[in-house]
């Protein structure tokens, strides 16, 4: 036994997967028993329980803790078990093989770095053997050892083992997974688990135990480009700390960071930590840390910090591979919540390209739903632009889950960015924001001075619906309340800024309008605008240019009608303008633009 000095320790997470009844729990139990890794008395205790209940002892009972699991002889939920061998520590996760519990298998496998995939020699390759193999590849687990179990039931025959190896290798090669090795065992009898079996002299490879030792520790993501998703912004004391866990790369004091998708930028002033001496000046991939910035820029949870020259992708649309484990099928057009690192945004499935039948990997006919436990290739569209990477470039920021009602119901990896109609404008906004020459007065200084943040109120609607009247009333009310507001009518730009342009070039008109609004917003104003010329799609373009400033879209109409997408407030029929202006002001308060009362400290939804 080594002494109590600190020594380098390595920990590895391993998952055991495979079809139901192929012997995963038995393999785990046997591994512990044959290496004397069980707590004192555990084996006897389980033997006693079996005797009392009048049933034969099985190694699987050691970890199937629930009464129901023992009664049914199946594993329902994943168990984490702790195992140490030759100075290496393992957390071995026993995942259920029954297809009803696939979500539990995924929960277990998602945290693993390597996998043992168990196949019954007598039954051969079954549905879940393949499905689990496919899911391992989707979950990014590339180190796989295949354990061919129950060799005793096939008379320890080499040809049976080799046939399974050949068939399964072919299957895995389609997934670009190359298994490390195939091990023939009998978990029940202990052949090739911890000890080499005398029953299979034809096998010259390693035991299961030795195979564990050959799995490698994942390499750190420190060398990859920086990805620092913002988890929260704390202001418990004088420090304003941007907290989060570094997904890839490293961050150090003095680095210039760009936050996507807002394109805000600042220098790292300090790296914060509690009870760490000396005070750290950098943090690396995997660490939960906190930083302060040299400027009080507005940043919200969900943004991803990176360096300027290696920023993540930004779009509302992407292609992905997704597995679905929801109670209800995944439907095209239905709204779901997408979560990517710390970002949460509403989304919908735009296209189901194909259902990948995990059993044969062939595509099936096109459908509008993805059923429980199916894997599909999709295009997803989010309501607001998100920052992300392709999974092949950066794992943590290249994968996401979908939440249906209260439950995480699907997981996916991003395979391709799809350009949407605003990609060009978004790129313009990003380049402009990064290159923007700033004075010493920041947005927070202006907000403090004015007592409110900047915002854009966009009033839409047909002719004679009272848009201009409302806009003037709103501007008047805001200024009377002591706010700083300005009415920007699209028509005013026509004679000046747009005088060189043909009437019909609405695209350029919209772009210029958006840039002017952006300038006014940068001065800290609440810009109230009415535009007749612009339709719904153009409003989306303006949002893209002023992003991430809060935009409140108000739609006016004479009768009930479908307002343009993303409308916040709609007012059909006869109007009480006083009341509508008051309602918009309430909305500005809800969105954290205005403080509740003048003179009170502004309560912002994000930042400060």
């Amino acid at each position, binding site marked *: *036994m*080594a*002494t*109590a000095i*600190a020594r*380098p*320790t*390595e*920990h590895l997470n391993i998952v055991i997967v495979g079809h139901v009844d192929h012997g995963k729990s038995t393999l785990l139990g046997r591994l512990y028993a044959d290496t*004397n890794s*069980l*707590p*004192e*008395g555990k084996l006897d205790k389980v033997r006693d329980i079996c005797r009392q209940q009048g049933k034969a002892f099985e190694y699987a009972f050691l*970890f199937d*803790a*629930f*009464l*129901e699991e023992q009664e049914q002889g199946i594993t*329902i*939920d994943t*168990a*984490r*078990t*702790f195992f140490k061998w030759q100075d290496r*520590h393992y*957390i071995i996760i026993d995942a259920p093989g029954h297809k009803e519990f696939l*979500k*539990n298998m995924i*929960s277990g496998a*998602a*945290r693993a770095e390597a996998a043992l995939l168990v196949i019954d020699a007598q039954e051969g390759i079954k549905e879940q053997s393949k499905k689990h193999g496919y899911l391992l590849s989707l*979950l990014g687990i590339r180190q796989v050892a295949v354990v061919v179990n129950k060799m005793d039931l096939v008379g320890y025959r080499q040809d049976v083992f080799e046939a399974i190896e050949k068939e399964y290798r072919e299957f895995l090669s389609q997934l670009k997974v190359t298994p490390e090795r195939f091990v023939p065992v009998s978990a029940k009898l202990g052949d090739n688990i911890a000890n080499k079996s005398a029953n299979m002299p034809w096998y010259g490879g390693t035991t299961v135990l030795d195979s564990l030792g050959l799995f490698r520790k994942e390499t750190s993501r420190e060398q990859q480009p920086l990805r620092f998703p913002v*988890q*929260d912004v*704390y202001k*418990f*004391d004088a*420090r304003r*700390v941007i*907290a*989060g*866990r570094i997904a890839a790369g490293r961050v150090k004091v003095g680095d210039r960071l760009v936050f996507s998708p807002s394109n805000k930028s600042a220098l790292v002033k300090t790296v*914060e*930590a*509690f*009870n760490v001496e000396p005070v750290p000046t950098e943090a690396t991939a*995997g660490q*939960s840390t*906190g930083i302060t910035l040299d400027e009080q820029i507005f940043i919200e*949870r969900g943004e991803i910090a990176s360096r300027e020259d290696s920023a993540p992708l930004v779009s509302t649309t992407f292609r992905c591979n997704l597995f679905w*484990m929801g109670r209800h099928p995944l439907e095209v057009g239905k709204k779901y919540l997408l*979560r990517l690192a710390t970002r949460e945004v509403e989304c919908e499935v735009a296209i189901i390209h194909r259902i990948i039948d995990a059993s044969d990997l062939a595509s099936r006919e096109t459908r509008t739903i993805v059923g429980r436990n199916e894997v599909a290739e999709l295009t997803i569209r989010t309501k607001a632009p998100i920052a992300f990477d392709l999974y092949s470039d950066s794992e*943590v920021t290249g*994968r996401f*889950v979908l*939440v249906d009602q*209260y439950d*995480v119901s699907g*997981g996916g990896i991003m395979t391709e960015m799809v350009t949407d109609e605003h990609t060009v404008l978004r790129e313009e906004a990003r380049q402009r924001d990064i290159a923007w020459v700033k004075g010493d007065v920041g947005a927070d200084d202006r907000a403090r001075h004015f007592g409110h943040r900047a915002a854009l109120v966009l009033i839409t609607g047909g002719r004679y619906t009272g848009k201009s009247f409302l806009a003037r009333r709103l501007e008047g009310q805001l200024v009377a309340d002591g706010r700083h507001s300005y009415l920007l009518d699209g028509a005013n730009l026509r004679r000046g800024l747009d005088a060189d342009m043909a009437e019909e070039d609405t695209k350029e008109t919209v772009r210029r309008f958006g840039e002017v609004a952006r300038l006014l917003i940068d001065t800290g104003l609440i810009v109230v605008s009415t535009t007749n010329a612009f339709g719904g799609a153009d409003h989306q373009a303006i949002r893209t240019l002023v992003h991430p400033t809060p935009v409140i879209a108000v739609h006016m109409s004479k009768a009930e009608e479908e307002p343009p997408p993303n409308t916040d407030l709609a007012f059909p029929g006869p109007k009480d303008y006083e009341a509508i202006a008051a309602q918009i002001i309430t909305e500005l308060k809800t969105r954290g633009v205005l403080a509740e009362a003048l003179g009170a400290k502004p309560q912002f939804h994000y930042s400060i």
Partner: protein
Amino acid sequence: MMNSHLRQLEDQSVYIFREAYKHFDNLAMLWSMGKDSTVLLWLARKAFFGHVPFPLLHIDTSYKIPAMIEYRDRFAREWRLELVIGQNKEALAKGMNPTLGRVECCTALKTNGLKNLIAEKGYQGIILGVRADEEGTRAKERYFSPRDKHGDWDFREQPPELWDQFKTTFPEGTHIRIHPLLDWTEINIWEYIRAENIPIIDLYFDKGEGTRYRSLGCAPCTTPIKSTARTVDEIIEELRKTTVAERSGRAQDEGRGMELLRKDGYM
């Protein structure tokens, strides 16, 4: 010095704390003054840079060892903690005690004491220090584990948990148990206490009588183990050699006690 595995455990726990704080308006943490929940408390201070932005709950069964109460009050003062103490006074008034049955007593004084407090205060999230290596049902827990309206645990229908995306949305009237220490082992806890120099209650150390507590609970149902470990170093050395289960001194673990207790909302 902290080894890389301890650092990983710390990073993961801190991440969980921050997710809990972000998603739950009415959050609280259980503190039993034992080694695990004291490490938990330390990790909260790590996560929030020296602050603990939610109350700490102590379910007082009235059978706790007196030294534990002194320790609680001292650090609540020093670390400026908001302490909320819950007690099932009704059950105590009716004379509930361990001689009426261990599972019955735990259910009345701990489980129901906690449930009453959750109902009274309307907590949506409860952070607690259970570890997967303690016993079988805890090995199957999630980091974010829902409890229904009655506080019960439906282990058949646990939510999927992957890529650090947790269950943070839930229907009215239910709550979530949050387990930042799930991946820690007993030895990790002690290694971390050593690395961070966390002040730990001295009941864990032998004071010359050749015994110490390995796991702390109520006085009548927790027995000390034979051990001469007087320091954190000596405890770590002892744990490296032992093959005896940590909770062997805890009476409620006998038979199927823990599964039944935990299904009904025990910690």
